[in-house]
């Protein structure tokens, strides 16, 4: 799922500085699952914002709503009473934030979170990046471990010289993706594939304002 982390309260305060009536909207899908943008986070962030304003001797009215997703217009329809507010702070991922901005083009929409990666829900409160959305999946060639996401350099042909006891040169807490791949392919008995040289990535598929159209 998409993982996002909360923005600092200072940042959010700065965004809404000129406004007295703000609607905070949460999302009940990915960001709720990673404990960052669901109804609880909306409540805590709205409360914090209100208290922080009060400490400054001012008031702010923060409405709180959470919809199941902010990346579908039908679900965005469920956001109500926007005419009562001057701005929206969305705790959805970047997609949802832009969704709400498209839905309500006359209202400034501010991000309450930083969308970070597509990740795995390892255990309560811990998520790890697994996919970069490169658009050219080669997991069948690498034993089911992604070198694009899990190698710091996104190398495609084996570990670099910085590999250190199964850990990556950028940090001892990070596994070397290529050691993971090697071990996995050894376990699967496919090390002959390991020796095949993988072609450079087609970065044309990974960037450039993508869309998918299944309408025909």
């Amino acid at each position: 799922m998409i993982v996002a982390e909360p923005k600092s309260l200072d940042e959010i305060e700065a965004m809404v500085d000129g406004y007295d009536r703000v609607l905070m909207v949460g999302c009940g899908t990915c960001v709720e699952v990673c404990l960052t943008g669901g109804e609880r986070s909306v409540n805590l962030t709205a409360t914090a914002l209100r208290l922080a304003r009060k400490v400054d001797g001012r008031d702010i009215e923060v409405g709180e709503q959470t919809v199941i997703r902010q990346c579908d217009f039908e679900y965005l329809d469920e956001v109500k009473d926007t005419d009562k507010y001057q701005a929206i702070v969305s705790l959805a991922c970047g997609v949802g934030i832009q969704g709400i901005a498209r839905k309500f083009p006359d209202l400034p929409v501010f991000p309450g979170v930083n969308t970070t990666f597509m990740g795995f829900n390892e255990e309560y409160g811990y998520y790890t990046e697994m996919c970069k959305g490169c658009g050219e999946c080669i997991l069948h060639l690498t034993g089911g471990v992604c070198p694009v996401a899990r190698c710091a350099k996104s190398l495609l042909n084996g570990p670099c010289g910085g590999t250190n006891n199964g850990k990556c040169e950028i940090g001892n807490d990070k596994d070397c993706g290529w050691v993971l791949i090697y071990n996995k392919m050894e376990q699967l008995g496919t090390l002959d594939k390991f020796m095949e040289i993988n072609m450079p990535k087609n970065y044309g598929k990974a960037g450039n304002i993508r869309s998918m159209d299944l309408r025909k």
Partner: protein
Amino acid sequence: MASEATNVNSQSEAFETWIKDQPLKPPCASACPVNADIQSFVSLVAQGRFKESLEAVRERCTLPGSLGRICHHPCEGECRRNDVEGAVNIRAIKRFASDVCADEPASDAVPKTRGKRVAIIGGGVAGLTAAYDLAKDGFDVTIYEQNDACGGAIYTGVPKYRLPKEVVARDVAAIESLGVTIKTNTAIGRDVAFDDLAKDYDAVLIAIGLTVSRGIPIPGHDADGVLLALPVLKEANFNDNAVIGKRVVVIGGGNVAFDVARSAKRMGAEEVSLCCLECEDEIPAFSWELGEAREEGIIINPSWGPKEIRVEDGKVSAISFKRCSRVFDEKGIFNPAYDENEILGIEADNVVFAIGQGADMNGFTGTSLEVDERGRIEWDALTLKTNLPNVFASGEVVTGPGSAVAAMRNAHHAATAIERFLTTGTAGAVVVPEPLAIGRLPRHTVDAIVRREKNHVPVVDPAERVKSFVEAEGGFDIDMAIYEAGRCMNCGRGAEIIAEKCAACLTCVRVCPFGAPYITEARVAGFNWDSCQSCGICAAECPGMAIHVGFNDDTLINERIDAATSGIVAFGCQLGKPEIYNPVSKATSAPPGLNFVKLMCASRLDMRHILRAIENGVDGVAVMACPDDKCRYRKGVNWAEVRANRVKRLLDEIGIGGERVEFMGSFATPEEARQAIGAFRAALAELGPNPLNKVMVK
């Protein structure tokens, strides 16, 4: 439970609403003959809300002090804690709730809004229970009691060592305070005519019990020294100088027989034997009576039937028994068989028959009440009606002998029947839905539950207790009661999902120590109430705020938080030691300005609770928790600390300052707690008042 149901018009409606609300109940409530909401009243004791607990008990178990001593507690037999270390001591907790509130002022009278009058003949267990229900419904109730005080069998019969009479009086007074009129020393027939009552009152309930002891016409039964059970018990209860012969033989195997035998010991008998038809396994008295009686030196002779009483000079000198080989025949009918070749002879000064009782129908002879040829009232068990349109009957007089709580159950039905009759004009069958019990504790949950050994009440040493009628069993003190009540696992009051808010994120599944949450086929969280302990850890973590935990919900907690708008709010486990607030004396051993919000567990503490207190204007929040090895829900202290730390960081960002929240953990003594609060208070004084108080425009 009635306090939870709103917009109900009667006790019976409240009860039925409670049952239908969630048909699966904890096994204690479903085993209880009156389906008392045991989990509620136990939880209230655990929270230190003793008065509310007592009133909750009284809703269904109308004589709490008395039943806290004499009830045979089928609830405990089904308590799911049996699978862990032992049942919760429910009866002792009930007794505690009554005892600790003994000096509380009486409740106010209930306004008699119904404009109908009910006469209840007999102020025993059944009569009192029906009176309570009907008075609470707003009827004008009058009890006609032939003795000098109400209570019936538990007043005149049950010995003082089991049930002191001032406790009975306490229970009766609570009912009387509702506005019930009690006419004592008033017997039907002798003092007031039944037909007059049937005419003058809109409804009459006959609840006269079984007050006439029976004997067996064996040879010698009319000699001097041959006694009947109830008169002996009455003598023991009301004559401080009551005596009995040195050698006493009691015939019978029921509770009354044991009451007689043990009373005889206390009245001075040196040798007391109890002989009954039943073999040891079949003895109908409550199982603990045998042990306690034997401890007191009473000899129990099972499988003997009375044969003949030897009389010398017109007085009893001995009694002989024949071996009883069988009590019930193949059809299960009472049909004892004897072997006359096996004889047991016992020297005796007194022989007491304790083999059963019958009803005293003398007051009804020649009235319009129909009785059968054996003197039993013509009675419909479903409608509880007699032949007369506005006359009902309940209790042992119509059901036959049974336990006190069974009589209460029947009386609740009678009150329902009468309430409906007086409201609609017609009497229908009283059919009360039976609650079903939730399942047994799954193995993985039993393993996860923290062991807390059961508390037992103190019992007077047998050698000591036979010397007088002093109460043989003690009760819990506050600490023991709260501890024991804390062992209740809140079965059947588990977490519920608000499906539309659930993202199936698995947080509840991962944080629950007991394996209760799971993902249903509908792909939202569900909670297995067989496992759920209602601690609320999941509710405090759920990112969608999609979990509702019954009585442990935010609404109640918020109410307690809102009680303070200044000073310090402290959060802690309701079982946390040490108490810094005494719920009985209402004295607080902490300085004023401390609002102690008790939670079922410190792990229930939600970040939002702390923020709410701060937003209300309090200067500081202290978070306390039981030590890790004492926490009921495992890691409660860890959760409390994590949440406190999260709020501290947030308060720093907000600009109010995280120093206003302090995680204090646990304390070994009240003194330590007071010192920590004192130090915190001093630190807060340096910080100044909550900045929101300065700038908030209210």
